[in-house]
C-alpha cells in the first residue's frame, strides 16, 4: 500500500503522543487536508500535500506535537474546518498537518460573566444550538456559519455578517490559549485576564493572534463573549435603478447612527445577475433593478421597532424602492448559502460550466467605492475576454461599523474560475488578475483583505507594500517567537525573516 512520507522515528513519536488512531499517514487523509475552498491549482495538487495528519484532543498533545516539530525542524500547519478562502490551512512545505476537529468541547458556559470557553474545533452553529436554551448566543456569523470553526475564525480574523452590531471575531474573543511555535502554552487576553474584555496592563498582544494563519502558533482554547439573543429582528431590501444612487443610499443608511444596525449590504448589477441565474430559491425581482441594498437590525423591541421606521424613511428618501416583505424577510439567508453554487458559472458564450468561487475582499473607505467598482470590473472583463475560464460574479460592499460614519467597508469582487481547465498558463493568468485587483485596492488607500487574510498566491506579493515598515515588525516577531520557522512556513512571505 501507500509508502509512509515520514520517518519511522517521527511516526513512532507521534503515535506515542496521540495513539495510532490520531496519526494518519494514508494518501487520502493527506490529500483531503490540502485544499481550501479558494480556487486552487488542481493540476499541482500534489505539491501541497502534508506528510502526516495528526488529530489531537488536548492542549498538551498539541504542545507535544509542536515541541517535536520544533526539535526536528518539521513544518506544522494548523487546520480547523478548512473553509478559509486564503490558503492559510494549505501546507506549502509538507510536514505535519495538525487538524483540530477533535478538539470540539465546550469547556464552560458562564452565564453570570457571560462567556463561554471552547476548544478550537467547534462550529458556531453547533455552539449556538447548545447556548439557545440559556437565552444567549455567540454572535459570530460568517457566510460559512454552518461549517466553519472557532480556531479558523481566529486564525484568519474572520468577518461577521452581523459584526456592525456585535463586533467581528477579534472583538468577540476575550482571551485565548495558544501553543507557541516552541511548544510553550500561554494565555493571551487583555492584560492577564481570562474573561476581562479591556485592560491596560502591558502590551496589547491579543490582536497579534488574529489573522496570523497559523504562523505564530496553535490556538487550543478560547473564551468567547456571549450576548443576549435579540428579541427583535428587522430586515429590509431596497431596489435601485443605478449603482451610484444605491451607493449614496448605503452611505445614508450606514450614517443613521443606530446601534441596532447589524449590517448594510450593497449588491451591484453583476451580483444580481449571478443571484438571478437559475437559482430555485431566489425570489424574483423586477427587471429594472440594477442594484440592491439590504439592511438588517437586531436588538430589543424597544430599540428595533422605532429604528426600523426611521430606516425605512432613510431608504426611501435616498432613492430606494422597498422590495416588499417577501424578499426582505425571505432572502436574508442568501448570505449564508448562495456563494457556493458552481453551476452559476458562465463562459463568455453563455455556456454553463461549474466554476469555483474566488473573492477578493478588500477593506476600503466609503468614498472610493464607485471608482474601485468600475476599475475592478474592467480588470475582470479583460481576463474573461482573453482566457475563457473566468466569470464575473459581481461586487458587494458591506459596512464594518455602521454607527460610525468613518466606518470602512468590506468590498468583495467574486470571480468564478473553472479549475478543471487550469494549466500553468491559466494559473499564472489568474494570479496576475488578482495582482491587478490588489493594485487598485492599494491605489485607493485600501487594505488587501478585510476578513480572509492576504496570504494567497498573488495577493501576498503586495503585503510588504501595504504594510511598509510594519512588515519588518512582523518579521521580527515571527523570528523571535518561531526561531526555527516551523509554524506554517512559507505563508505571508515570512520566510524572509530568516534570510540574513
Amino acid at each position, binding site marked *: 500500500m501507500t509508502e509512509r512520507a515520514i520517518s519511522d522515528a517521527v511516526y513512532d513519536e507521534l503515535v506515542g503522543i496521540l495513539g495510532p488512531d490520531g496519526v494518519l499517514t494514508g494518501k487520502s487523509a493527506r490529500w483531503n487536508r490540502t485544499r481550501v475552498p479558494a480556487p486552487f491549482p488542481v493540476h499541482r495538487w500534489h505539491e501541497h500535500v502534508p506528510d502526516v495528519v495528526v488529530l489531537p484532543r488536548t492542549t498538551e498533545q498539541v504542545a507535544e506535537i509542536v515541541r517535536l516539530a520544533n526539535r526536528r525542524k518539521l513544518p506544522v500547519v494548523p487546520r480547523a474546518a478548512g*473553509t478559509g478562502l486564503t490558503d492559510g490551512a494549505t501546507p506549502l512545505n509538507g510536514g505535519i498537518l495538525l487538524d483540530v476537529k477533535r478538539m470540539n468541547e465546550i469547556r464552560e458556559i458562564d452565564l453570570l460573566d457571560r462567556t463561554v470557553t471552547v476548544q478550537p474545533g467547534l462550529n458556531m452553529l453547533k455552539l449556538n444550538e447548545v447556548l439557545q436554551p440559556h437565552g444567549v448566543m455567540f454572535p459570530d456569523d460568517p457566510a460559512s456559519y454552518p461549517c466553519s470553526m472557532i480556531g479558523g475564525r481566529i486564525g484568519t480574523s474572520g468577518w461577521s455578517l452581523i459584526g456592525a452590531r456585535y463586533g467581528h471575531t477579534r472583538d468577540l474573543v476575550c482571551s485565548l490559549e495558544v501553543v507557541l511555535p516552541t511548544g510553550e502554552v500561554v494565555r493571551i487576553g487583555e492584560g492577564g485576564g481570562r474573561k476581562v474584555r479591556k485592560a491596560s496592563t502591558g502590551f496589547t498582544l491579543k490582536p497579534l493572534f488574529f489573522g496570523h494563519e497559523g504562523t505564530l502558533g496553535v490556538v487550543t482554547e478560547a473564551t468567547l463573549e456571549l450576548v443576549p439573543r435579540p428579541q427583535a429582528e428587522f430586515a429590509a431590501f431596497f431596489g435601485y435603478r443605478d449603482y451610484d444612487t444605491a451607493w449614496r443610499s448605503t452611505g445614508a443608511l450606514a450614517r443613521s447612527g443606530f446601534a441596532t444596525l447589524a449590517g448594510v449590504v450593497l449588491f451591484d448589477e453583476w451580483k444580481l445577475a449571478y443571484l438571478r441565474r437559475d437559482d430555485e430559491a431566489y425570489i424574483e425581482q423586477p427587471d429594472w433593478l440594477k442594484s440592491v441594498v439590504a439592511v438588517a437590525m437586531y436588538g430589543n423591541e424597544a430599540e428595533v421597532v422605532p429604528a426600523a421606521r426611521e430606516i425605512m424613511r432613510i431608504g426611501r428618501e435616498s432613492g430606494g424602492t422597498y422590495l416588499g416583505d417577501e424578499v426582505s424577510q425571505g432572502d436574508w439567508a442568501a448570505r449564508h448559502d448562495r*456563494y457556493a453554487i458552481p453551476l452559476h458559472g458562465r463562459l463568455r458564450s453563455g455556456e454553463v460550466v461549474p466554476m469555483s468561487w474566488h473573492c477578493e475582499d478588500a477593506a476600503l473607505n466609503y468614498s472610493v467605492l464607485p471608482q474601485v467598482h468600475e476599475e475592478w470590473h474592467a480588470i475582470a472583463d479583460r481576463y474573461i475576454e482573453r482566457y475563457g475560464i473566468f466569470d464575473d460574479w459581481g461586487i458587494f460592499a458591506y459596512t464594518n461599523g455602521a454607527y460610525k460614519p468613518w466606518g470602512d467597508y468590506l468590498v468583495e469582487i467574486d470571480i468564478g474560475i473553472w479549475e478543471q481547465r487550469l494549466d500553468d498558463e491559466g494559473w499564472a493568468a489568474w494570479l496576475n488578475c488578482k495582482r491587478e485587483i490588489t493594485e487598485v485596492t492599494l491605489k485607493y488607500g485600501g487594505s488587501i483583505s478585510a476578513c480572509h487574510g492576504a496570504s494567497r498566491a498573488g495577493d501576498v506579493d503586495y503585503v510588504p507594500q501595504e504594510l511598509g515598515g510594519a512588515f519588518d515588525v512582523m518579521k521580527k516577531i515571527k523570528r523571535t517567537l518561531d526561531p526555527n520557522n516551523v509554524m506554517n512556513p512559507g505563508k505571508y512571505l515570512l520566510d524572509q525573516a530568516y534570510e540574513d
Partner: protein
Amino acid sequence: MSSDESTEAGDAQREFVEQWRDPAYNCFSSGHKFCRNVCPVMQVTRNENHSPTAFHANIVAMEQGGLTVADVAEDYVHCTQCGACELRCPNTLMAGDFYRARTRTVDVVKAMRALAVESGLEQPNWKRWVEATVDRKNEPVLDVPVSQENVAKWAEGLGLEAGGETILFVDCEAAFYRTSLPRAVALILRAGGVEFGLMREQWCCGGPAAEMGYVAQSREFAEHNVADWRAIGARRIITLDPHDYITFTEDYPRYFGPAYEFEIVHITELVAELVRDGKLQLSKPIERVATYHDPCRLNKRKGIHQSPREILRAIPGLDFRDVDHVTQWAYCSGAGAGLSIERPELTRAISGQRLDRAAQLDVDLLVSACVWSERPLTEAGEHREPRIEVRDLMELVAESAGLEVTP
C-alpha cells in the same frame, strides 16, 4: 496481481472517474462544506476523510493521478447512506432540479464500493457477510437460524397464504430477529381489511449487497424476487423496512427498466391512510412520553415524514414530543449501509448520540419505523439511566388498536 488484471483494474478506475468526475467537481468546487455537520459518521469520528465532501474530492484527485481506488476504498466504509449531506448541499438546495445536479453522494459511495469490490479491495466483514448471504439467501442475522425453511416462521399460527396481488415483504432483520414487528404488521393489515399474501420463496432484497458494492449478488437476488412476484401475480408490494423501500423503488427500477411494473408501498403510508379513513381504530391509550426517530431512508431519502407523525398523534394517551424532520437531518442510528457490520463501534457511538438527543426531551420511549435501527438504538437505550425503550411504530399501532401480538 497479473499485468492483465492490473490493466483491467486500471480500465475500471478510468471508466469510473470518467463517469463521476463532473458531479464530483460540482461538490469540489462548491466552497462550503455544510454537509459535514449533518453527517452522522463525521459527528463521531471528526475525521475529514470520512466526510461527504471528501468522497467527491477523492475522485477529482484520482483524475489528477494523485489517488487510486486502493488509497480511498476504506474511507468509503464510513457512510450510512443516510442522504443528509445531499439535502444540506447548497447545490441541491439552490440549483439542483434546474440542472438535474442534485448532489448524489449516496450513489457515489455505492459506485466507489462497487469499484473497490471489482478491483479486489474487499472489506473483510462485508465479504464474510455477503458470502453467508449468498449461501443462505437471507442476511445472516446474528445468533438465529437463517434459512429458507425459517424465513416465514414469524408467521406461524397466523394462517397467511402465499400469493395474491398484494405481497407483504418482510425483511431479514424482522423475519428472523424482531419477529414481533411483522406479526404486528400482519394483524394491523388484517384488522384494516387489507388483503395480502406472502412470497413463495423470499430471498434477501439484495439492497445491502448493493450498498456494500456487491452489485452482481444484488441483481441475482433481485431477479429471484421479481420472478417470484411475477409468478404469483403480485402487483403491489408492502414493505415494513425503509431499506427495502429504497431498494425496490431505486435499485430494482435500475435493474429492470420500464418493465418493472410494481407499486411499492411503505407500511407507514398505508397505515396512516387506514387510520385517516377510519378503517383502523386506535382507541386503547398508551400512557408514555415518546419521541420519534425519523429513519434516514424514509425522511431524508424519500421525504416520508408526515405519515408516521400523523399516526403517533392519533394514538390516545401518548405524550408525543416531536423534533421536526429538518432538525433530524443530522440524526441517524448508524445502522445503515453496512456500517454496523464493518465498524460496529461507530454504529454504537452514533446510536448513543441519537439516544442523548432523545433524552433531552425527557422521554421514556423512542419510536422508530426502521427495523434495522432498532437493534443498536435499543442497546443504546438500555445502557442509559433512566432507560429509554425503543419500539417500532407498528408495534405501538397494534397495541393501540387492541391487537394482541403474540410472539
